């Protein structure tokens, strides 16, 4: 009984859980990693995991890609059955999020290169060491 509900939980929600686990991996990388590039990688993982979360929201069992079938044979203004197409809204939102992700990545990498040029290293502890001297 208990086991069954657990399995049902896993089966019905595993995609969300996967996204959340990835979010946590990314967050751990961002906070705990010593190497700044690793932090950036963690950041990208974090962001794409959130995108996964949103995409999971938009998925519909038994539906097709969100492009209306049209042209020959399909009446233009016939009533469209919403169950046939997956939810387009999360996709739209996540296109934006991907772009934001790459933008942030670019800026972070630029600053990273600058830091390397100034401090000669991108290990956080070494930078802090060099500041103390």
């Amino acid at each position, binding site marked *: 009984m208990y086991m069954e509900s657990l399995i049902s939980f896993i089966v019905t929600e595993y995609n*969300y859980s996967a996204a959340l686990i990835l979010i946590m991996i990314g967050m751990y990388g961002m906070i705990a990693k010593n190497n700044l590039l690793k932090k950036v990688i963690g950041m990208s993982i974090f962001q794409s995991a959130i995108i996964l979360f949103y995409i999971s929201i938009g998925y519909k069992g038994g539906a097709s890609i969100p492009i209306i079938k049209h042209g020959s044979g399909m009446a233009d203004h016939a009533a469209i059955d919403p169950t046939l197409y997956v939810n*387009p809204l999360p996709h739209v939102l996540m296109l934006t999020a991907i*772009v934001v992700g790459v933008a942030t990545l*670019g800026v972070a990498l630029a600053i990273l290169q600058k830091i390397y040029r100034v401090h000669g290293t991108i290990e956080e502890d070494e930078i802090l060491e060099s500041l103390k001297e």
Partner: protein
Amino acid sequence: MKRLTLFLVVLLGAYLVWTTQDLPDWGDPASPANSYLSTHYIKKAYEETSVPNLVTAVLADYRGYDTMFETVVVFCAGLAVLTILRRTKRKHKKNVKFRPQREGVDIILQNAARLMIAPMQLFALYVIAHGHHSPGGGFQGGVILGASFILLALAYDLKSTLRRFKENTVLFYSGLGVLIYAGIGVISLVLGGNFLAYAAWGGLLGISEVEAHSYGMLGVEIGVAFTVMAIMFSLYLDLASGGDLDEGL
């Protein structure tokens, strides 16, 4: 410190995973997210905009304001990297220790690139233009366009690429793209509609309002493509050369 972070992260993760039991089942067509706004878009978008790709319709029209700022984000990132990294004086050159060295000229690579670039760009244009009917649109096409220039720079070298596509031109295109997008919005504003209300274009172009939506979207997708292409290339330029546009990877 690391242990503590790990512990906290695991704790937070476990809590968040636990909360998912409250969420609707994955893939449930009747979940609120899949039924409320989404149903409206699926039912009405084609009728209202004559664009069958729902993602494009929602992206460039219903939520066109978001997308404009998304383009601005790209533009902003390009400028940010430029402002942070770009140097015109080369006094710091000695500090760059691990500068990648280019050894010789790889003829196979160059010829392969030469063969590929033209189809790539053609495909990119197709992606932009056909975004109404198939997956794709300004972003994807723009990225592919940008990638074609990156490929050129990788196969040849940065300087010869820059001769074809000057840095100032890159910046000009990036600004131009956003300007096209915002300009379409402003013109609809001047034509008496709200900002980005493509329907206002109908009278000007002599087409129905529904068609005007479709054309408006094409226009903004082109704008997006300009900006994304230029900025993707510009990001590569600055990051690969460390900011002095001297030598790439």
